[in-house]
């Protein structure tokens, strides 16, 4: 499906600015974040163009959200109507494309989602549920889509999306972002290359501060597009954060509105979903206009910020990026060998322990993650998760995630494992997520 060169494409636009929702009145994620974007889109008359069709979002069902996330103490404690409508906006965009009503769609919605992981103990990086992941689950469940690629063009590493799909070899996640050593959330390096059964399905491209249009476009042309071509996705989703913009208050990149429009033009994503971007007056109106025109196959060459002055990317940045591209090409070539290596002597189970911090909620979470490895099929993974510091006190949850690719055998073994762990009785709640089977089942002890 992806990479069609469509003449005069039609674009579905889900515009949901959530004018009545904010994290707090002065938080970057506040009511008027998309006000000026609305002004620009309406003033340009974009919604009157014959090849642009506006769609309303819907309220995402708890079922579809539970196909992705496990909450502590539960999802209802954290997920508000606004989150469900934002995810529902992404779903409406996916429906418009997959029903064939439009060629592409852009869900211009908030609140965002790409820092939200499988486990939801609180709010991370302004995100509570991962709206792209919920949309991807919807596409697999309702339309039988298998291979999905998500390209995250937000300036921050999409650590939530990485977490959700880290063990899924059929979902390619590519994130380019300002280097984690200089920006939240501090992750997103080359060696986070996918779980043991999904090596090569997680691509992080950490870029130096001051990267401009030139650098990003080169990364797109020389890395992102060739990797996508190798992966052969049915659907490409653009997790379309806009904070690489030169005016963004939370980051240090130098990309312009026209640069964003060119990236979108190169990518030819089927569906784009808005993520971050907090220069609400100086960037968002123009970046969004550029993206809409570009996705609709219209002339974006006249889109320009009023305060635009030509920006030259520093030579040391250009050099750094050139070297990074070379290193990456090498790693991509070796992905099959690396995948084979990691399984040597790994046995049936692979384990790792790590911690996650929820910056908005001040919650620490500790996880023990286990993956069941099979030589020929995708196995379950589980998370034993313990958190402290939040409004609901200490939480201890065990979550078993059955892959959407599961067959009868892997599904049965996942249930057996859950029962075995339940006997040990360390946690308050035991949850099994069977996305294309029985959905989410919770046992509270």
């Amino acid at each position, binding site marked *: 499906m992806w990479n069609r060169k469509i003449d005069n494409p039609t674009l579905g636009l889900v*515009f*949901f*600015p*959530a*004018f*009545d*929702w904010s994290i707090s*009145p*002065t938080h970057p994620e*506040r*009511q*008027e974040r998309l*006000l*000026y974007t*609305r*002004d*620009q889109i*309406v*003033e*340009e*008359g*974009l*919604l*009157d163009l014959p090849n642009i069709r*506006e*769609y*309303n*979002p*819907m*309220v995402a069902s708890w079922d579809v959200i539970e196909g992705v996330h496990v909450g502590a103490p539960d999802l209802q404690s954290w997920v*508000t*109507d*606004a989150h469900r*409508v934002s995810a*529902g906006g992404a779903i409406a965009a996916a429906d418009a494309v997959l029903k064939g009503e439009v060629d592409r769609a852009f869900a211009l919605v908030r609140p965002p989602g790409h820092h939200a992981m499988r486990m939801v103990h609180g709010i991370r990086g302004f995100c509570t549920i991962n709206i792209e992941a919920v949309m991807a689950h919807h596409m697999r469940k309702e339309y039988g889509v298998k291979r999905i690629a998500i390209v995250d063009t937000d300036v921050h590493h999409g650590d939530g999306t990485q977490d959700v799909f880290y063990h899924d070899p059929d979902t390619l996640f590519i994130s380019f972002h300002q280097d984690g050593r200089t920006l939240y959330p501090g992750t997103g390096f080359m060696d986070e290359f996918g779980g043991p059964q999904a090596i090569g399905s997680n691509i992080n491209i950490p870029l130096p501060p001051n990267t401009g249009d030139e650098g990003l476009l080169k990364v797109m042309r020389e890395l992102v597009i060739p990797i996508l071509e190798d992966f052969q996705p049915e659907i490409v989703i653009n997790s379309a954060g806009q904070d690489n913009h030169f005016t963004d*208050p939370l980051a240090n990149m130098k990309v312009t509105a026209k640069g964003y429009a060119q990236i979108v033009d190169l990518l030819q994503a089927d569906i784009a979903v808005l993520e971050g971007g907090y220069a609400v*007056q100086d960037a968002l*109106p*123009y970046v969004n*206009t550029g993206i809409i*025109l570009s996705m609709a196959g*219209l*002339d974006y*060459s*006249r*889109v*320009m*910020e*009023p305060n635009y002055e030509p920006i030259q990317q520093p030579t040391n940045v250009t050099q750094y990026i050139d070297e990074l591209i070379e290193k990456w090409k090498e790693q991509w070539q070796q992905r099959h060998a690396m995948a084979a290596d990691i399984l040597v002597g790994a046995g049936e189970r692979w384990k790792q322990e790590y911690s996650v911090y929820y910056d908005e909620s001040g919650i620490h979470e500790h996880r023990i993650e286990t993956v069941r490895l099979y030589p020929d099929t995708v196995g379950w993974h589980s998370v034993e998760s313990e958190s402290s510091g939040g409004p609901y006190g200490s939480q201890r949850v065990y979550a078993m995630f059955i892959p959407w690719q599961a067959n009868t055998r892997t599904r049965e073994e996942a249930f057996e494992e859950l029962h075995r762990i339940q006997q040990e009785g360390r946690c308050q709640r035991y949850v099994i997520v069977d996305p294309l089977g029985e959905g989410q089942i919770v046992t509270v002890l």
Partner: protein
Amino acid sequence: MLLGIDVGGTFTDAVIIDGTQVVKWAKRRSTKDNLLVSIEEVLRDVTTDIDVQCIERVTLSTTVVTNTIVEGKEDDVDLYIVTGPGMNVDHLFPVVPIFLSGYTDHRGMVVESYKMANLVEAMPKKRAHKAAVSVKFGNRNPLEELRIGNALAEHYSQVSCGSMLSGALNFPRRTVSAYFNSAVASVLEMFKVVVVGALQAMGIEAPLYILKADGGSLPIKLALEKPVETIFTGPAATVLGLYASHRMEKGHIVALDIGGTTTDISLWVDGQPLMMRDGVYIRQYPSAVRSFAVTSIGIGGESVVRYVDGVIQVGPERVGPSMALGGDEPTLGDALIVLGHAHYGSYEQAVAGMKKLNPTMSVEVLAKEVVQVALATIRKGIEDVVDLENKKAIYVVDDIVQERRFVVERILLVGGSAYSLATFIEEALHVPVVVPPSAAVTNAIGAAVAKQTIEITLRVDTKRRLLVVPELGLEERGCSLRRIEEVEAKAHQLLRDAALTAGLGSDEETINVETIGVEDFPVIEGWQSKERIMTVRAQLQVGVTHYVES
């Protein structure tokens, strides 16, 4: 007494209303090549035995401006635009626009001002007589537009400014409005001269008003400044006629006006007709002209019935009267006569019509099939209109969680074929159908009792201490309003003043102002300073001065 005149394409109607009673009405075929003839005839008919000195107000509705536009006979206009960066609009307008440099941003700040010294240079060699000017975000600060407009006025007989016609966002729509405003000005002017002449000949000296597409009326003098607003007054008059019949109760009602050629569909919520979302389309161009949401579909009592590729098709054309009335081809009306649901003309000819359509079938079975086809079209038309209404953009969480959908609760039928189709429609759509005692001159009644309206958009930016009302050309600096309640009160006051100045009411009591939109946003700059941008749209209430018994 009120005099309403509706100059339509087929008929010219007039009605005199006294209190809540229609005291007299008249109907004549419109004389297309010289409208004066039919207007004079209908005035003579309707004023027989009436003391014309008692007429307090004359209101017109007309398709004259509409027809000029439909036929593409409007005047040439030079269109000047200031777009700044953004979408390519080279091919968006009825003419190739003349681009002027400059840019106003979404806060209404003039980022780059047009250098007026270049204006003459920018003008086309062969100038039109009329011009229009439109600036992107000109509604947020009309200064540039007015400056350029004033300079152009030295070279053109008329210049229309986009932001004076609408304070709403949407630069292409305001531009289209401005263009057509200049393009139809002379048509309306000529029409006014004809009507005033006819009225004077009858000794009628009451003030003359003209209906707008949004159902409000304007004194003719003001209308001549905004002639584009008088397009599509026909459907507006129908909607007001329905309004005046006082049949629109609580709930969600679909009104169908089934005429000879078309069925006009309008939606009503709790007694109020719904408006078009952003404005009407003028030819293929979306404009900022406010209007009732009236959709026409090609089904009427005289819709022609034919076999097309072996399938019965009803409408969308009307080729002539029904065969029962001496026409040459069978119509929906003939089918209804055959089924005993309509009783006019010759029953035998109606039967002959069905036989002509298909000699091998039973005429009743065939007639039923014809009606079913027409009903399917009507049902589809209603569904499309309702779907469109329910697709209106929703921008706040609360509106989507508390779903407010239009669900058809009742159908109100008016027009020539209303009685004969009522039971069929009720059966086909499973919705109760009401047919009020219909008046043959609904449009003229609607015009006669229309209230006068104007609309303004008031915007306050507290950081810049700026107050702007583009429709009034008002830009006030040093504004100290800080709260939305104050802004709303100010908008109401300005609108009242504007209404009094325009002669739309004699005192504050008679002027009903309503708020039709409020936006109130905090603006955080540098993360701390708390300022606000507040917008209030207010209008004089649309509606009727009297309910009329027919």
